[in-house]
């Protein structure tokens, strides 16, 4: 009797456990109350109408902060295709946090559990995933023709469009307009002008640069800007040659002129300061300039809504052709090549750039316009940055291997801590680039 009882107990435990495991829907099910009730009432009201076809789409995106807006937009999409194609779509939206997103999507793809649509970083991740064959070609879709030419290039690989760009940024460094106006300073176009600006700021008791180097991606922004300016302005074939193991960081050692200037004239305790803290300090006027993209504008304005921010291009040397602004597409939406619901998935991808609804979405999410269907007022700093683009003073964000980008940030941290010299930086970066090339070749 006792035995029987214990066996029963064990079985009970196991089944409870399995039930617990089985319930693994992490994502929020957008198809909650509204659509199903709509479907029910729809059926009741129009029984003469044909039964709607059904489709289930899994969508994974890397910006949890926009979950509400995205869910609302997906609901609009469901209403649209129910009306136009008589299709009832169930859309499961998952929003893992961006720092885990890479691992999650990687696991899901390699375990044959891929979402039908997912976001990728256009320059850092898209090429790898395209090569692995996970991304559907969107060239023939209407969305491809709507994209601005500059932006279209950022999601094009081998002349094929592979993703819908969401976030695109036009960025340089940020400066505090109030301080600049008060001292009558102009945004510098050359390194010498920058030196004068730094001197004036210091003479008037201001700290020129905000430094927040605790997270390696923040110091890395300095290399992104300086390399971008230098390479696009005077040695345009550098990146290609680096990919062929034929270049060296020796050719761009000049970037340290401005990096040194920034590091020597910045706020203290930089390695203890995270990016948010840096943004807060900049917002409170502790420094006049901050090498940080426009994406941090929200954090800065959150701390001090009255601050007036400007965007400038970081000079590398005295050649104005090298002083340019960075144009980059980051988060973009790709369609899984193996999806079972290709037609619906493509419809959703196209709806992201819908002539009628897309503008409102991009505006609400504070994204820059990426396509001809986008007509909305931009923020003043975004406009200022865009004016560089209009003058032709922008370059497309350099596409470097992830390993190289990471390493640059790490080395700059230890360069700031004076544990690495310029020569070591060059040596290690050259090696890292070669290793990355080899790893990429191996993966083919």
């Amino acid at each position: 009797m006792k035995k029987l009882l214990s066996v029963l107990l064990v079985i009970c435990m196991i089944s409870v456990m399995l039930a617990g495991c089985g319930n693994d829907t992490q994502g929020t099910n957008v198809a909650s109350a509204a659509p199903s009730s709509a479907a029910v009432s729809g059926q009741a009201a129009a029984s003469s109408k044909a039964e709607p076809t059904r489709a289930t789409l899994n969508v994974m995106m890397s910006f949890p902060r926009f979950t509400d807006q995205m869910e609302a937009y997906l609901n609009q999409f469901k209403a649209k295709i129910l009306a136009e194609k008589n299709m009832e779509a169930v859309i499961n939206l998952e929003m893992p946090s961006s720092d885990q997103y890479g691992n999650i999507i990687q696991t899901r793809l390699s375990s044959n559990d891929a979402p039908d649509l997912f976001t990728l970083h256009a320059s850092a991740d898209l090429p790898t995933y395209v090569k692995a064959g996970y991304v559907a070609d969107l060239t023939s879709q209407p969305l491809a023709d709507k994209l601005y030419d500059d932006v279209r290039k950022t999601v094009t690989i081998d002349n094929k469009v592979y993703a819908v760009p969401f976030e695109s940024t036009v960025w340089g460094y940020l400066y505090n307009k109030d301080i600049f106006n008060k001292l009558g300073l102009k945004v510098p176009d050359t390194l010498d002008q920058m030196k004068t600006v730094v001197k004036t700021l210091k003479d008037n008791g201001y700290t020129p640069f905000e430094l927040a180097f605790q997270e390696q991606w923040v110091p890395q922004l300095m290399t992104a800007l300086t390399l971008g300016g230098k390479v696009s302005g005077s040695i345009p074939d550098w990146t290609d040659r680096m990919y062929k193991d034929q270049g060296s960081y020796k050719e761009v050692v000049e970037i340290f002129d401005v990096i040194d200037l920034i590091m020597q004239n910045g706020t203290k305790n930089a390695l203890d300061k995270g990016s948010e803290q840096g943004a807060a300090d900049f917002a409170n006027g502790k420094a006049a300039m901050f090498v940080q993209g426009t994406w941090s504008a929200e954090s800065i304005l959150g701390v001090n809504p009255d601050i007036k921010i400007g965007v400038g291009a970081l000079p590398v040397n005295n050649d104005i052709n090298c002083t340019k602004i960075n144009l980059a597409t980051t988060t973009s939406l790709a369609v899984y090549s193996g999806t079972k619901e290709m037609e619906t998935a493509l419809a959703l991808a196209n709806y992201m750039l819908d002539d009628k609804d897309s503008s409102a979405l991009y505006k609400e999410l504070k994204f820059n316009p990426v396509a001809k269907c986008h007509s909305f007022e931009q923020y003043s700093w975004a406009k200022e940055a865009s004016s560089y683009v209009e003058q032709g003073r922008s370059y497309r964000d350099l596409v470097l291997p992830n390993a190289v980008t990471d390493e640059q940030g790490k080395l700059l941290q230890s360069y700031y801590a004076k544990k690495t010299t310029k020569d070591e930086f060059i040596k290690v970066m050259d090696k890292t680039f070669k290793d990355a090339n080899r790893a990429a070749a191996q993966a083919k």
Partner: protein
Amino acid sequence: MNINKKQSQNFTLILFVLPAFIFFAAFKLIPAVLGLWYSFTNWNGINPTYKIIGFENFAEIFTGDADFWRAMLFTLKYVGAAIVALNVCALVLAVLIESARKGRSFFRTIFYMPNMISMIIGGYMWNFIFTQVLYYIADNTGLEFLNKSWLGDPKYSFTAIVIVAVWGGAGYLMVIYIAAIQSVPTALIEAAVVDGASAFRRFISITLPMIKQAFTICLFVTLNSAFQVFDVVFSLTGGGPGRLTQVVAINIYEEAFGRSNRLGYATAKSTILFLVIMLITLIQLRVMKKGEEEM
């Protein structure tokens, strides 16, 4: 009949162990075996296909990976410091609490508490303390020795990491030590008191030898966890500045999920870490066992 009964008893036992075993197999055993397999491939974690490349990964680690060995060295340094600091602190706490007249359970709870907080959260809390609170205190009280770049300067960040590790880990070891101290027969202590032994003498000659098993357990636990340390370092310095505080686990993580996504290569590194831990643990267990038998 008797055999039958025994068999069904065994069956019941197996049933009871089964749920735990399923979990162990699904989340530890199978991934470990797979990891070993991937270490012989060049899989990047994304591609659907990969090649078996034999011992190439291992050869590369031994010939061309200075960062990994630097991380290994830093980990060894950390293991040494953490084992000493953790066990000394835990033992001192255990003795103090056991000799307290009042509020034993209160202090026990207080010191055990950090163990219940996830180390990642604890790490970020300390991150805030090191980067904000200490500066504030230094600025407002003139305690100049606090005004250091605790996490930014590798000279001090090692200390910071050990401090947080002790904060988070000492409570657990303390409980083991307390249990051991409580199991020391009071008759022995009373006899020593009658003989006129001082409190210090009683601790050295009676308590310490009697709690030797607890030492074995605690050393085993700290050795293991210190080698695999990740969360404390990750949340405090992230291995930075640069790679100056990078431990092996972070190096492996970076290789697998950052840089060039070389998952196969990263699993080769973790295989080496596994072998190192196994070797040291085997030696340690053997030595400690000998010590226990001698008693």
